[in-house]
C-alpha cells in the first residue's frame, strides 16, 4: 500500500519492542465482540493510483463544467479567472500540509500570510480589523448575528428581504436553537431595494439589521441610510457581500457605516468547486468590537531578539481556552482558501482589482442591454455590478432547463432559490464576469429569443 511505509519486518521488530504478541494485543481495550474480524465488507480492496484516477475521472465527466458552456450562474458563487500562480503557491507543501500555527516560531509563513490577509480584507471592507477567516459567507453571516446579540444584549435580528436565501436559512436554523428572533422577508420585485420597508421593521429591540450588498437580485443598496436608521435605534448594521470583486468598483460597506461586514471570499482565488470549500470573511469597523469577534486572529509581536513576528492572539475568546464561554465553537477555518484569496488579491493589487471590476461591469452592462432587447425579457435592476435579474414572463426554471440542453447555463432561477414563492418564479439572476465572452452573451440572447418566442 503506497501510503504506508512500514514493512512486515518493521512491524515485527516494533511489536517485539512493545512486548506485544501481535497487533490485536494493542487493540485489547476494544471489546472483542465489537472488533471486526477482517477487512470491512462491501468496500473493495486497495487500488492503484491509475485505477482510482480512472474511476474519479469517469465521475467528473458526468458533470457539465462551466468552461464547456455559456455560463451565467452566480447568486453567491462566482466564476473568475484564477491566475496560474495562485494554484501553484497553495500547492506548495509548506502551506498545503502545515496546520494551525500553534508553534509560531516554525509557522511564520502561515502567520505572516494571515496578517496580510486580515489587512487586505479589512481594507477591502472599509473596516478596522478582519479575522483569519470563517467557513464560508453563510456561516459568517450567522456568526455576525450572534455577535450582534452579544454586543447589544438584544436578540432580534432584522434581515433584509434581499439577503441570499441560503444565508437566511442558515441564520434561521441557528437562531431556532439559540433563541434569537429572526424577522425576515421576501425580496421585492422592483428596480431598487425596499429600504423604507426595511427601516420600518427596525425597533428598539433590534440587535442588528442584515443587508446584502450587492443584494441577491444584484441591486445596490443605500447602506448609509440603513446604518443611520439602525444606529438611531441602537442596533448594529451587518453588511453581507458575496462578490468581493464588486468592492473594486463600489464603496466599501464600512465606509457606508456598516458595523460588521461579512462575506464570501470564494470569488478571489478559490474557484467554484460545487459550493465548497469556500472562504468566510469577517470584519468589524470599530476596533472596540474585536473582543466579541469569533474565530482566529493573527497579531504582530516581537521575538526574544526583538525581531518582528506574528502569533495567533486574543485566544481567550476561543473554544480551546474558554470552552463553553467561547464566542464561537469554530476551530479549523479556511486557511488555505484565505491564502488563495490573498495571493490572487496580491497579484491583482488595487489597480488590477479596479480593472477587473470595471471589466466585469462593462460586460454585465453589455449583457443587460442585449437581453433588454429580447422580446419578453425585462431587466429589473436600476443598479447592479456584475449580476442582475431579468423577468421572463414565465417560470424561469423551465427556461433554464431548456437552455441547458443547448449547453447554456443561463443563471440561477428565483424558483430554485425560493421554491415556495410562486410570485418570484419568473425571475432569473444572471451573472457576468470577465470569463464571459461577448459571444457567450450573444449565444444567451439569441437562445432566449428562440425559447421565449
Amino acid at each position, binding site marked *: 500500500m503506497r501510503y504506508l511505509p512500514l514493512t512486515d519486518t518493521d512491524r515485527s521488530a516494533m511489536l517485539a519492542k512493545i512486548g506485544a504478541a501481535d497487533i490485536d494485543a494493542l487493540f485489547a481495550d476494544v471489546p472483542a465482540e465489537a472488533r471486526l474480524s477482517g477487512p470491512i465488507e462491501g468496500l473493495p480492496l486497495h487500488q492503484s493510483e491509475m485505477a482510482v484516477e480512472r474511476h474519479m475521472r469517469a465521475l467528473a465527466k458526468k458533470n457539465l463544467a462551466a468552461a464547456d458552456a455559456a455560463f451565467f450562474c452566480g447568486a453567491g458563487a462566482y466564476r473568475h479567472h484564477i491566475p496560474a500562480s495562485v494554484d501553484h503557491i497553495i500547492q506548495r507543501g509548506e502551506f498545503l500540509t502545515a496546520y494551525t500555527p500553534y508553534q509560531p*516560531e516554525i509557522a511564520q509563513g502561515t502567520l505572516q500570510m494571515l496578517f496580510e490577509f486580515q489587512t487586505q480584507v479589512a481594507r477591502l471592507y472599509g473596516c478596522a480589523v478582519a479575522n483569519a477567516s470563517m467557513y464560508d459567507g453563510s456561516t459568517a453571516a450567522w456568526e455576525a448575528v450572534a455577535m450582534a446579540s452579544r454586543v447589544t444584549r438584544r436578540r432580534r435580528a432584522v434581515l433584509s428581504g434581499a439577503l441570499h436565501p441560503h444565508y437566511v436559512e442558515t441564520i434561521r436554523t441557528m437562531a431556532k436553537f439559540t433563541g434569537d428572533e429572526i424577522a425576515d422577508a421576501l425580496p421585492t420585485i422592483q428596480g431598487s431595494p425596499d429600504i423604507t420597508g426595511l427601516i420600518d421593521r427596525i425597533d428598539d429591540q433590534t440587535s442588528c439589521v442584515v443587508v446584502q450588498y450587492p443584494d441577491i437580485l444584484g441591486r445596490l443598496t443605500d447602506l448609509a441610510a440603513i446604518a443611520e436608521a439602525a444606529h438611531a435605534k441602537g442596533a448594529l448594521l451587518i453588511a453581507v457581500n458575496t462578490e468581493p470583486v464588486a468592492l473594486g468598483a463600489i464603496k466599501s460597506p464600512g465606509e457606508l457605516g456598516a458595523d460588521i461586514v461579512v462575506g464570501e471570499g470564494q470569488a478571489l482565488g478559490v474557484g467554484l468547486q460545487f459550493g465548497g470549500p469556500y472562504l468566510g470573511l469577517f470584519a468589524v469597523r470599530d476596533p472596540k468590537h474585536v473582543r466579541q469577534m469569533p474565530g482566529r486572529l493573527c497579531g504582530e509581536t516581537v521575538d526574544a531578539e526583538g525581531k518582528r513576528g506574528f502569533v495567533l492572539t486574543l485566544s481567550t475568546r476561543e473554544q480551546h481556552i474558554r470552552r463553553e464561554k467561547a464566542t464561537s465553537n469554530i476551530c479549523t477555518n479556511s486557511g488555505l482558501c484565505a491564502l488563495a484569496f490573498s495571493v490572487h488579491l496580491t497579484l491583482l*493589487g*488595487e489597480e488590477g482589482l479596479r480593472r477587473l471590476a470595471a471589466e466585469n461591469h462593462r460586460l454585465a452592462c453589455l449583457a443587460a442591454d442585449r437581453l433588454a432587447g429580447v422580446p419578453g425579457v425585462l431587466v429589473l435592476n436600476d443598479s447592479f455590478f456584475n449580476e442582475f435579474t431579468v423577468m421572463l414572463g414565465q417560470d424561469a426554471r423551465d427556461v433554464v432547463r431548456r437552455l441547458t440542453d443547448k449547453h447554456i447555463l443561463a443563471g440561477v432561477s428565483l424558483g430554485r432559490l425560493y421554491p415556495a414563492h410562486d410570485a418570484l418564479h419568473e425571475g432569473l439572476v444572471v451573472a457576468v464576469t470577465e470569463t464571459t465572452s461577448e459571444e457567450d452573451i450573444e449565444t444567451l440572447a439569441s437562445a432566449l429569443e428562440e425559447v421565449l418566442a
Partner: protein
Amino acid sequence: MNAPNASGWKPGTPVVGDAGEGPATSTGNRALMLEEPLIFEIGTTRTTGVDLPAANGSQNRLGSFARKGEIGLPGLSEPETVRHYTRLSRQNYAIDLGLFPLGSCTMKHNPRLNEKVARMPGFLDVHPLQPVDTVGGALEVINELAFWLIDLTGMHGVAMTPKAGAHGELCGILCIRAALEARGDAREVILVPESAHGTNPATAAFAGYRVEDIPATAEGRVDLEALKARLGPDVAAVMITNPNTCGLFERDMKAISDAVHAAGAFVYCDGANFNAIVGKVRPGDLGVDAMHINLHKTFSTPHGGGGPGSGPVVLSEALSPYAPLPYTARTADGVVHLIEEESAEAFSAEHFGGKMASFGRMSAFHGQMGMFTRALTYILSHGADGLKQVAEDAVLNANYILRSLDDVLDAPFAPSGPCMHEALFSDKGFAEGFSTLDLAKALIDEGFHPMTMYFPLVVHGAMLVEPTETESKAGIDQFITALRSVAERARAGDESLKTAPHFAPRRRLDETLAARKPVLAYDGPCTPGGKPAASEIGGQ
C-alpha cells in the same frame, strides 16, 4: 490544540554566543533562511501582476455607489508574488518536511492524487446552483462517499454538509435537540468529560445547553458509575471522544451507550480520533448516535495551515430524519437525488414514509465538495484492507513511541495497557523550573514539529504525541532519539532549553505583548522600499 503561553514566558535578553550564530549579515538573511517584508512594504497600489484592460468607465450602472479614493491594496508582479509566497512558505514546518506529531490532529501524509482529482474540471469548475441534471457526477461523489462513511462506521445515515469538525459537532447536537423536541422532551444538560476538546463544551453551549463535567477514573477513562449516577431526565446527551484524548479506548463504551439510552438521552461521539479504529471497529456497534468525521484527519485531506476541513456526521436511525438540508440520497432505482428545501417534503413522503424532518440548513450550498473528492479518492486508494492497516500502523507507531520513551518521560496511563494512536506523556520528572513548553521548543531545534502541548487538561504539562501511520520506522526512530535527548536535557535542567528554539526563523515570540497591545492589521500606506521585517521592531 495548545494553551497559549502556558508557561508564562516573558521576553528576556537573548543568549549571546549561541552555537552557530556566526557574524551578522547586512540583509538579516542567513543563507537559505530569508527574511521577507510584508506585501504592504514591497507592493504599490499601481502595480499589478494580471493583464487586464484599462478601465474606460464608459458604462456605469453603479448609481451613486461608485468607489472613490484609494483602498490601499498593494500589488506585485507575478515574479515578485511567487517569490514572496515561496519565501514565506519556507518559514513553515509541514508534513512534507517531517514528522508532525500533533496529537489529536492526525497529521498524516496528504496524497497528491487527491489534489489532482479535486482539480479535474468536472469537479473544480462546477457551480453549486447549476441545474441538478448537469451535476450528476458530483452528486454521485457525495453519495458514494456517504455510502462508505456509513459502511465504515456502521451507522444509518450521514449529514454531509458540515464544514469542519466543530461544525459537525454542532450538526450532531442539533439533530439530538431536534429529536428530543420532536418527542416533546426538552432537556437542558449535556455531559462532557474534562478531557474533551474545547469545541465540545463550546458546541453544547452554542446549541443552548448547560454543560457539566463527567468525572474520569484514575486510568484516564470515563467513570461509568459516576456517569450512571448523574444521568437523569434533564440530560440530553453525553459527548464522548473515543478513542479519548488521553489516547485510550473507552472500554466501557457499550455500557455507557446502554446507560445513556436507558435514561432517554443520546450518545455523541467526537470522531477526531477515528483514525485509530477505522476498519477495526464500527462506532455504530458501540451504540453511538452521532459522530463527526474529520475528513482532514482520518481521510487525509490537507490541513492547509488551518483548514478548510470537512466534518460529515454519521447518524443512528433515531437521528437520521433530522439531518440538515441539503442531503443526497440514492433511491431503489439507483438514481442519486439532491434534496433541497424545494424537494424535501415530497421526497420524504415518496421514499421515507414522510419521516424526514430536517432541522434546517447549516450553510449555503452542499458542503465541502473539494474535500469529498479527495476523501473518496483516499478511501478507494486504501480500500478495505488498506484502511484496516492504517489503523493498525497508527496504533503500532504510537505504542512503539510510548514504550521507547517511558523510561525518560512520565507516561501516566501506560501502566494500564497499550495506547491507541497517540502516546500521552507528562512533565513529571523535569528539573525544577522546566516545562513542557521548553521541551517542545527544543524539539523544534531538533527539526521536528512539537507534539500537542498542555492538552488534555487532565494531565499536568501534557504532551500528546500522534505519529500517524505514514511514518517509516527509521523516521520514528530518529524522532525517538531526538525526543529522548531533549527529555534528558529537561530532566537534567539544561538551561539552553529555556531559550529554545535557537535555529528557527524566529526565537520565542512574545504572546503577551500581542494580546496586550493587539496589532491586527498593517497600519499605513503601501511603502515599497521599506526595510525588511527583521530590522524593524514591531508591536508599536
